[in-house]
């Protein structure tokens, strides 16, 4: 088969990429070759852009019904492209221009990319979409005559098919930035994926789960889960009763406490999908003697900011509203729970949005939890966690914030079976659900995530537990201290029936901590009950 080149993105073909020979997995899944991954119904081919790899990420991008619609996408995209290297894009202009100008095309980034490694498919090389964008820019926005365009390979035609596939391709990168870590010139090819997403978003084209059901909903009701204040308060009350019964003593969760030291800032999805996580925080913060509170005000009980994955304007809008609401609470500091992208959005991305004095300090909960363990304020019995444990490093938290050691200090103190996966820490691989993939399922994107983008993570997990893997009597716990990562792991464990067959379990860090607390008799982790 001939090599797919950036020019081929415009080629008429039902499907450019097939995933029928994926990276082999370790035992006991060594027979799995992928083979798919997604079923593509004929009606989807008529409705969406399925011609990249059969999967659909941008469900708002529909097949054009007229020449006018074709031209609208092309001209809109090119207009957005022309704005990339102006001060209108100041938050990213310098790194973007460096990456655009100086890439040496050495392909070092390909070796670092888990999606390229999993598929070997040319369009998944990090430089592929960057090069397609360069060609378009040089042909349509770069100026200069035909000779310069020829010299700089500005030789790609902007057609509907090409732009649509490029848009889909921007959602085949987890924005984990592992490629940038390896680049000898310090450049970041993931920026191009993000910028393509931004241009599409400016045209009203973004995946529904992250835009309409994400950012828009959050700005409207205060949370991307759609939970309003009354429902949130109900959930907290239910949590107090339920968890109180489970641990055998009353649990009080402070909400809207005036002038508290700490506002604990959760991904609201935790209350819906993994309520044991915020409950575990409540137990640990209460027993650790911290002066803390949750807030029931809109924008302060949901830390997510999906804007950082696809649209800087949305990200800033959400972050500013969150900041404003948090300041009004009168707390001294904001502490982020187990959500990687919320960590980065609140502590790093938003850091330069406003003047220093206009925002509250934001920090991670992990250093505080490590201090609790170190201080001896809570007694832990590591023997209560006798099973093998490995640690996933959420990219936003570890590679992009440098918070790596506290989690490890905690695990070494409470989990004797802790072992690192390989590679680990700042060099660990993405879970495969980064940048929105964790919540994108419809119509068939979940299959790409579960079988392709998460493949490397699944293999790392299989390797970390190799000695006990096939013994289903031993639970094997993947500690994933991030909502999106947990969501992804849940889904691919389901796809591979890994829990049912091999007793692979997953969860956060705080649940494991509470499970090890000496004075709680009943196991906190459900799979031990």
């Amino acid at each position: 088969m001939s090599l797919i080149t950036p020019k081929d993105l415009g080629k008429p073909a039902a499907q450019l990429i097939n995933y029928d020979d994926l990276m082999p997995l370790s035992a006991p899944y060594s027979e799995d070759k992928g083979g798919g991954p997604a079923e593509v119904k004929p009606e989807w081919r008529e409705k969406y852009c399925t011609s990249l790899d059969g999967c659909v990420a941008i469900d708002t991008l529909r097949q054009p019904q007229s020449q006018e619609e074709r031209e609208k996408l092309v001209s809109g995209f090119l207009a957005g492209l022309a704005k990339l290297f102006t001060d209108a894009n100041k938050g990213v202009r310098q790194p973007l221009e460096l990456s655009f100008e100086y890439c040496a095309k050495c392909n070092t980034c390909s070796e670092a990319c888990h999606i390229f490694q999993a598929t070997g498919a040319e369009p998944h090389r990090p430089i592929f979409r960057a090069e397609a964008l360069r060609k378009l820019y040089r042909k349509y926005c770069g100026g200069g005559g035909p000779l310069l365009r020829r010299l700089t390979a500005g030789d790609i035609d902007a057609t509907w098919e090409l732009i649509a596939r490029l848009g889909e391709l921007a959602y085949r990168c987890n924005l984990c930035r592992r490629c940038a870590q390896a680049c000898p010139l310090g450049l970041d090819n993931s920026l191009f994926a993000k910028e393509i997403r931004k241009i599409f978003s400016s045209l009203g084209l973004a995946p529904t789960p992250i835009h309409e059901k994400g950012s828009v909903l959050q700005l409207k009701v205060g949370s991307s889960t759609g939970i309003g204040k009354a429902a949130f308060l109900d959930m907290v009350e239910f949590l107090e009763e339920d968890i109180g019964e489970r641990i055998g003593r009353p649990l009080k969760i402070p909400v809207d406490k005036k002038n508290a030291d700490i506002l604990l800032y959760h991904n609201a999805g935790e209350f819906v999908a993994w309520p044991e996580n915020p409950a575990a925080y409540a137990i640990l913060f209460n027993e650790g003697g911290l002066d803390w509170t949750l807030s029931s005000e809109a924008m302060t009980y949901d830390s997510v900011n999906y804007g950082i994955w696809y649209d800087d304007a949305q990200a800033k809008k959400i972050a500013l509203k969150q900041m404003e609401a948090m300041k009004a609470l009168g707390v001294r500091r904001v502490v982020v729970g187990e959500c990687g992208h919320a960590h980065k959005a609140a502590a790093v991305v938003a850091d330069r949005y406003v003047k220093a004095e206009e925002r509250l300090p934001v920090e991670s909960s992990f250093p505080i939890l490590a201090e609790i363990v170190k201080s001896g304020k809570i007694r832990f019995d590591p023997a209560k966690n006798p099973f093998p444990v490995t640690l996933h490093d959420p990219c936003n938290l570890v590679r992009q914030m440098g918070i790596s050691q506290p989690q490890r200090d905690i695990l070494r103190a409470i989990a004797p079976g802790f072992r690192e996966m390989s590679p680990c820490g700042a060099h660990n691989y993405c879970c495969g659900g980064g940048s929105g993939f964790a919540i994108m399922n419809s119509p068939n994107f979940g299959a790409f995530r579960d079988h392709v983008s998460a493949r490397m993570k699944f293999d790392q997990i299989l390797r970390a537990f190799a000695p006990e893997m096939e013994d289903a009597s031993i639970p094997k716990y993947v500690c994933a201290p991030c909502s999106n990562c947990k969501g992804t792991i849940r889904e691919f464990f389901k796809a591979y029936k890994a829990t049912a067959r091999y007793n692979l379990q997953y969860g956060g860090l705080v649940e494991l901590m509470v499970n090890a607390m000496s004075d709680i008799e009943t196991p906190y982790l459900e799979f031990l009950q």
Partner: protein
Amino acid sequence: MLIGICAYAAVGLFFALTVRKFLYFAKMPLHGRMELYPVPGEPGRSHGGSYMENPEWWRRERRTDKAAEFSEMLKEILLIKRLRENSRAIWWASYPFHLGLYLLAAWTVLLVFAALTGLTGGIVFALTALTGYGGFACGLLGALLLLVRRIADEHYRVYTTPQEFLNLGLLIALLLTGLCAWGGGFAKAQDFMGGVLRLQAAAPDLMTGVHLALLFALFIYIPLSKMSHYVGKYYSFHHFLWDNAPNLKGTKVAEEIARGSK
């Protein structure tokens, strides 16, 4: 005299255009934080950690290790460390090429030294021969290997633009003509350098003339092309991947943000 003037003009333009490039990036607006760990300036956190591993990190004095940052950059410049660690096959081509350029820079300094002092024998002779022959040989070998890889391997070829092939071709031509022009013992190069410095360089033979024309053209072209990645690399590491300075009251970042938001 004309050659001397051309040489001074080419070198002058090289530095002027390089400074212009630095200023171009320096004048760009402050971007959002996009650091990537490990950040070498984080003292005691070689595991890839940051100041944010401390509770209430903003209340602690922030320390940065400039020596560690400098040492990391030096490893990157002199050994092309990341390429060596992440893509060894390409490093075997890229490293000799860059080493060749560094040796030729040292060779040029030695030629200037010999021209200014008249000292050409002993250690100066040995070092001139070592850096000169070593530089041309390594540079040529590396550039040829890079070119062969880009032509022979389709995963490289499809991403390489005609301009990038041209850049490699120009460098190979420069090194080849240089070896032919000066390679007979370097006395000619020392004499020529003396002539250039005094603006009294004799008219060159054809090969030397071609080499000089290429050399002067490249001095002007390099800062205008992507071969100026010595500028880009400074910004991409120091101002992008390693810039984790928080926006705290009284810091330079806070001042810049306050200025920008007015």
